[in-house]
């Protein structure tokens, strides 16, 4: 297996140009409309709104302004699949359409997916959606085809500010840590890395440098594996079955006792 590869996204240098979105769409030949329906909407300068089956990259525009708009700041973030080391989508996929590649990235094989959508509800980041053109679940592949050809992903290649950086995870972590220290020294004490350590789903192979709480960026503060309820849920279900079974046995047996009592009565 090749060394784990991924993205490090430094949100402090993103300028919201959306070159990454366009490069992703072009390389992956993603449609501009959702099944013929134009979904472009105005929300600040964001017009694609979210990650889904036809938007595998999405630049978020977060406005933090005072009511009189005299003071404030923009938070810009290019969002993408996190390629989690412990990937909920991969775990839950009932057709094995979702696989881990030799680059430690997570890829949906469109020809094996049957569109059951279990992965959509399992992903804690809301990354996956159905592509109406294929009827299958789709998301960022971290340009698996380009990686196999020795190229870097289209989005990071197109990023003009190095907000999106591609490389080996070890190298990226080193770069990211230096950048956090640099920002701290410059007075931006809020800077921290989201998903770089193993505590979050074993580590995110696409991690971020943020300067506000995760939920401000639309990221879960504490994402978890979907399997956390599997054992307890199964045991409680078994308990339900036992209770119903006991109730049924008691009622049908009592009926016999009632009838015997009636027969014995003079």
């Amino acid at each position: 297996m090749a060394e784990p590869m991924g993205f490090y996204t430094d949100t402090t240098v993103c300028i919201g140009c959306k070159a990454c979105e366009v490069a992703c769409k072009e390389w992956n030949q993603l449609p501009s409309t959702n099944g013929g329906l134009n979904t472009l909407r105005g929300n600040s300068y964001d017009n694609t709104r979210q990650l889904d089956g036809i938007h595998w990259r999405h630049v978020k525009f977060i406005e933090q302004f005072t009511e009189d708009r005299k003071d404030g700041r923009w938070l810009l973030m290019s969002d993408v699949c996190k390629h989690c080391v412990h990937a909920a989508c991969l775990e839950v996929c009932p057709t094995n359409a979702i696989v881990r590649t030799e680059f430690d990235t997570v890829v949906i094989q469109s020809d094996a997916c049957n569109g059951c959508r279990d992965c959509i509800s399992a992903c804690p980041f809301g990354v996956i959606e159905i592509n109406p053109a294929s009827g299958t679940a789709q998301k960022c592949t971290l340009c698996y085809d380009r990686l196999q050809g020795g190229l870097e992903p289209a989005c990071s290649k197109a990023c003009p500010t190095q907000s999106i950086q591609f490389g080996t995870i070890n190298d990226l972590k080193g770069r990211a840590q230096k950048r956090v220290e640099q920002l701290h020294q410059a007075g931006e004490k809020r800077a921290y890395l989201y998903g770089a350590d193993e505590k979050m789903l074993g580590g995110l192979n696409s991690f971020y440098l943020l300067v506000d709480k995760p939920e401000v960026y639309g990221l879960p503060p504490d994402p978890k594996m979907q399997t956390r309820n599997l054992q307890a849920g199964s045991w409680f279900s078994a308990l339900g079955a036992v209770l119903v079974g006991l109730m049924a046995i008691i009622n049908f047996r009592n009926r016999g006792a009632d009838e015997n009592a009636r027969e014995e009565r003079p």
Partner: protein
Amino acid sequence: MNAVPSSTYFSAPPDWGWLITLYFFFGGLAGGCYFLAVLIDLFDRPEDRPLARLGYYISFPCIIISGLLLTLDLGRPLRFWHMLIESNTYRPMFKYWSPMSVGSWALLIFGIFVFLAFLEALVEDNRLAWAGARKFRPPGVLGSVIAVIGGLFGFYVAGYTGVLLAVTNRPIWSDTPLLGMLFIVSAASISAALMILLAHGSRRTTPGVAVMHRLDSWVVALEFIVLIAFLISLGSVFRAWLSAWGLLLLVVILLGMILPLALYWRKEWLGDRNLTTSAALVLLGGFLLRLVIVFSAQGI
């Protein structure tokens, strides 16, 4: 107040809608009716055998409808077999930690048990001439073994759907481990209710129907307790019910649980129609319960 939102709020809804709601309902009926029919069979009362046959007659179409609903809901329905056979390798596809994977196999295997019981019921009703089918149902040893194993699969089919919802990252669904338990208990209540209704409609009012009614009142009471425990277990996510869905859930509790229980205890209220009215309400409540749970978590 805790300012950090539940991390489940950041996932995307899978757009499981009416087809899945109906599947949860029909799947619950298939599993529950089969289980109740098995129980009647195992207590071996000849006068109740028509009631048991009714259970098998309900299970069979319900399991067929379930399979069709699940297939139609897929983005690529013709690839339904990918659930059972890995499309790249043609090896069996099974993940014990994925409720949808296990559920697909359980549906298939349970379908075979239901089909065998359905055949036997047809033979016993003189609608099919195949004496060998008699072995598929109690009181014989083979029939009893089939019934017990099939009953366990029936329970699984009735309840795994709740566990499937819990094994996601959606709010409400994954904020509690009690959904599977709720669905199993509810499957038993709606199945008993439908059997009572159809027994009246088809004049199969054997002595077992009265027992079934009493059992249903017990199960509905248990369902009410489990539903309250489910709501409490949601913690801060309980606030998600402060919506139109919460109002509908209240309707489920009042119309589908409290009123049927009241009708059971106050038999004089509606006279002859008491039994069928309470059963119809339980059935309606069971459907609305699934509707509320499926849709509410996706509207957040």
